[in-house]
């Protein structure tokens, strides 16, 4: 059919569309969907087994503290500028938005810092920090381990009697987990400080802090730590998983890195949802326990 079309551009479009449908049809066929589901389960299985392996290796001597500190530095110090900037802007945006919403809704904007504080503690602190860690630190781990994989360094490790999970995954897990908790707290302060800057004309420091204190209490702080830990394992484990399984060549490393970041962010969102949905019950239980 496409041969009869005279106009060259139109014919190129039709030929390409035909090619695209051909590629898409492969995806939509039963075998295609089957492959996607299997791929999803395989990834999930791989991630869970790596998590279990890492936890088991965690307790096995020799403990390589030097490596853990090195990874902590990569996960913490190097990602500080990114966390600071993004969380800072986020704080300002939230204050501006709430100001706009509440002024039109309840016509009194005196409670803006309170609501903002709630959002910072419960939502924007841990989740956005986790997402940024996935982008900066997760991509870095996958790229590093991926390129080690393509140049046979992982096989070399195995041959020298050192388990790659123990030498590569454990230090990154410990470093990244601990740094994620610290970064959540630092990110929180960036949010609050930047939020104060954005709310300046209307609030001075004293009133800003007092209103925020009246709404935010200890349960929200526990919620923050809970989420930081709950999300903390995702970045190192998912990125190491994709790094170990990375195909050969520069293209392999590129693909592995992009998939690692996307999967990490998706898992972060799903876990964040589960924690948020059952947060109230958890916090109440934690409070009664204290």
């Amino acid at each position: 059919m496409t041969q009869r079309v005279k106009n060259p551009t139109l014919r190129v479009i039709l030929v390409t569309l035909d090619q695209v449908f051909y590629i898409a049809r492969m995806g939509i066929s039963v075998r295609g969907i089957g492959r996607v589901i299997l791929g999803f389960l395989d990834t999930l299985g791989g991630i869970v087994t790596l998590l279990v392996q890492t936890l088991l290796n965690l307790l096995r001597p020799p403990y390589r503290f030097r490596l853990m500190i090195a990874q902590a530095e990569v996960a913490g110090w190097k990602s500080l500028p990114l966390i600071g900037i993004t969380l800072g802007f986020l704080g300002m945006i939230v204050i501006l938005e709430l100001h706009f919403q509440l002024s039109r809704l309840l016509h009194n904007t005196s409670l803006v810092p309170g609501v903002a504080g709630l959002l910072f503690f419960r939502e924007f602190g841990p989740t956005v920090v986790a997402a940024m860690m996935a982008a900066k630190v997760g991509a870095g781990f996958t790229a590093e381990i991926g390129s080690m994989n393509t140049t046979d360094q992982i096989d070399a490790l195995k041959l020298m009697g050192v388990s790659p999970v123990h030498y590569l995954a454990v230090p990154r897990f410990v470093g990244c987990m601990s740094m994620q908790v610290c970064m959540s707290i630092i990110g929180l302060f960036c949010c609050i400080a930047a939020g104060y800057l954005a709310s300046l004309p209307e609030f001075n420091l004293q009133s800003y802090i007092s209103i925020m204190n009246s709404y935010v209490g200890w349960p929200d702080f526990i919620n923050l730590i809970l989420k930081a830990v709950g999300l903390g394992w995702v970045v190192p484990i998912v990125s190491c998983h994709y790094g170990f399984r990375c195909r050969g060549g520069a293209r392999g490393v590129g693909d592995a890195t992009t998939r690692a970041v996307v999967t990490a962010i998706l898992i972060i969102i799903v876990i964040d949802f589960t924690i948020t949905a059952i947060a109230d019950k958890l916090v109440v239980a934690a409070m009664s326990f204290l």
Partner: protein
Amino acid sequence: MIKRLFNYLWQLPFMVTGHLFTWLGPVISEIGSMSLFFWQVIKSIFHRPFEVREFIIQLYQVGVRSIPVVLLAGLFVGAIVSIQFHYALSQFGAGALQYLGGVTTSGLLREVAPVLVSVMIAARVGAYITAELATMKVTEQVDAVRCLGADPLRFLVVPRFLAVTIMIFILTILGLIIATAGGALSAYLLTGMGISKYFASIRSLAAAWALFNGMFKSLLFGVLLSTVSCYKGLNTDGGSEGVGRAVNSCLVTSAIAIFLADYIIARLASLTFEVAESFLFFMEI
């Protein structure tokens, strides 16, 4: 010992400013070269011939294959936002709860949907384009394109640039719809609020202005994102670890660019809104 300490303290401010500039210098030069790159890409869009074939394939690679990711992320984030607002609004007493639908949707519309979709697209597409272009550069394919008489900007960058910008706009709309549905669903399931009640309050709050604001924001993110990812892709050095580094810095730069642009627009929007409101007030509408 005291003298050494004093000496150190005395130097500290200079060291910090030194660090700041050593860190700031390259950042500013990068922003400069990126905007130059952006200008070259815009110029070469209008050069004959336009790569139709590549453009369509990129539309498929960028857009169609990102739909599942955007759907999944949108659904859950919509639910999260509505739960958080429910908790926040409940502090104001029962009266405020009826506005939950409006506040959540408006929050999603103006802020969360564009930013969320852009961050997902930055990860799913931006990093993919950087990885693909970096791989082509590392394996000398970009040189091959030049040696065969084609301009890499027009052949590689322009199709991807347009595909990302158009697809981000469409995916934001899709993400918005799914997120609102997620919000309504979680409000109904977790807090027992009727679906119709949830949607009733939307009409009053989510004015067309907010819709325009969100759409404009997603277009701007699209342009920012495609410039950063194409630039980082073509400026790679070193072998396969060079590719990994390029992808990493693309993600970081896009994240910062998205939040910075978001803040600027939020600031502009609030200014213009006040102007528009006083204008409306003046006109007694």
